[in-house]
């Protein structure tokens, strides 16, 4: 190429230290190595397990389709549980969400503690809630429904209050200026802005709950999950695969319907 005219060398900035990145990488690697030690996870172990896994898959196929008739009732119960649990949770979520929203509940003395409690509830996974409720209420779908209701309340309340905090403030001010009280303000300025979102969150939670309800039976909280234990206990893997396939089909169908509905809503 052409000879370049000489150029006054400008002051160069110093390269930032790479120490931070290096340290982060080392820490992550140490954590992963420690985790592998703690859980006895090794590639050798995995390799040793692969033949077992293949055996299992071989025993699962072909599925024993006749078993289908034995589990339809349990599947319906699963859907019922999800539906009722989601509904109860959604109703309970409304006041909680209103109390958590800083633009509606003006006092930090109220919304901070309520949010804190909500976060505490949300730390407990649904299956664990179900195990607790089974200990309290005994076996059956009711503890499962309660577990789903508490879980749904947590999720819907969180999503809703976050949406509430982004609503347009204009209508609220307008309602205040015409002398509306708190309930009237909610009815005329808040609900119209939030109802589509709320419905969408409820549907979304319902999708999650159908999946959750399908496994609650593992701790005795009703639904189809119970049949995993039954079939696996008797080593009837061809029946287990029927349960899995049936559940997947139901979940996919419900997801699809719910997704279409949510698309319509928003």
């Amino acid at each position, binding site marked *: *190429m*052409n000879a*370049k*005219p000489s*150029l*006054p*060398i*400008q*002051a*160069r*900035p*110093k*390269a*930032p230290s790479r120490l931070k990145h290096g340290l982060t990488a080392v820490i992550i690697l140490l954590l992963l190595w420690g985790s592998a030690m703690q859980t006895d996870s090794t590639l050798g172990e995995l390799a040793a397990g692969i033949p077992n896994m293949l055996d299992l898959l071989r025993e699962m196929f072909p599925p024993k389709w006749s078993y289908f008739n034995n589990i339809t009732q349990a599947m319906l119960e699963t859907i019922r549980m999800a539906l009722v649990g989601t509904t109860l949770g959604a109703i309970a979520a409304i006041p909680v969400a209103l109390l958590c929203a800083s633009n509606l509940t003006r006092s930090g003395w109220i919304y901070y503690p309520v949010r804190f409690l909500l976060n505490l509830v949300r730390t407990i996974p649904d299956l664990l809630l179900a195990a607790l409720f089974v200990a309290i209420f005994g076996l059956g779908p009711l503890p499962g429904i309660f577990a789903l209701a508490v879980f749904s309340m947590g999720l819907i309340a969180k999503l809703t209050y976050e949406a509430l905090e982004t609503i347009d403030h204009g209508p609220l001010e307008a309602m205040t200026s015409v002398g509306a009280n708190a309930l009237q303000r909610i009815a005329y300025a808040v609900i119209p802005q939030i109802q589509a979102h709320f419905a969408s969150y409820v549907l979304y939670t319902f999708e999650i709950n159908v999946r959750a309800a399908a496994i609650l039976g593992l701790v005795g909280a009703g639904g189809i999950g119970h049949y995993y234990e039954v079939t696996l206990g008797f080593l009837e893997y061809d029946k287990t695969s029927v349960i899995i396939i049936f559940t997947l089909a139901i979940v996919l169908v419900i997801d699809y319907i719910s997704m279409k509905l949510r698309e319509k809503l928003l």
Partner: protein
Amino acid sequence: MIELTNVSKTYPNGTKGLNQINLSISQGEFVVIVGLSGAGKSTLLRSMNRLHDITEGDIRIGGKSITEASGQQLRSIRRDIGMIFQSFNLVKRSTVLRNVMAGRVGYHSTLRTVLGLFPKEDTEIAFEALSRVNIAEKAYVRADQLSGGQQQRVAIARVLAQEAKIILADEPVASLDPLTTKQVMDDLKRINQELGITTIVNLHFIDLARAYATRIIGLRAGEVVFDGPVWEATDEVFAAIYGRPIQQDELLEERVV
């Protein structure tokens, strides 16, 4: 140096993007392509480094046909052609230096570049390129922290680091304000004069074209309707290219006031 013979581009839906274009651009020229939006300026520019494929004709860069090249051959032709974009096309989350170094990847093996093992001279080249556009002090700043004008200068530095023999600039100042527009065009002009890099620029502003170009090419509906030195490009010529009298928004100076 760049030779287009009978270049045409027909889109799948039948519309003609470019129609029988014959051009010869020699080393060191500063060519400005003008025309209405949709006249094919961008398509013409992008066919020169084959970001767009043409349907007919041949384009030769330094004697080698880019139309027929593929794989490594195509990449090595492209390495000699730098491109500057309207939207800068920097990786916003990467540092300025890393963006400039990205211009060097065509020179090294995949493994070497991926491991970040650029030779020391490459860092020198990158810093020299940054100094040339007066932005060396920002080398370790993330690109998204810079103003639009600064980002475009980083993009120019990337092309310089690429050690390209040709620079294609597709509306390089369309998203900049008038003041930074001048700085960026000055940079391009200076590089063209000091390093003798052939520069081809698509521009919307007529007065800018007149101020910087040595040669103006007018496109209309995919055809070259004017090709000549800047002093031949009178207002009447522009009116002919545009198919109507010059409008206020085609003049940069009017907008500064």
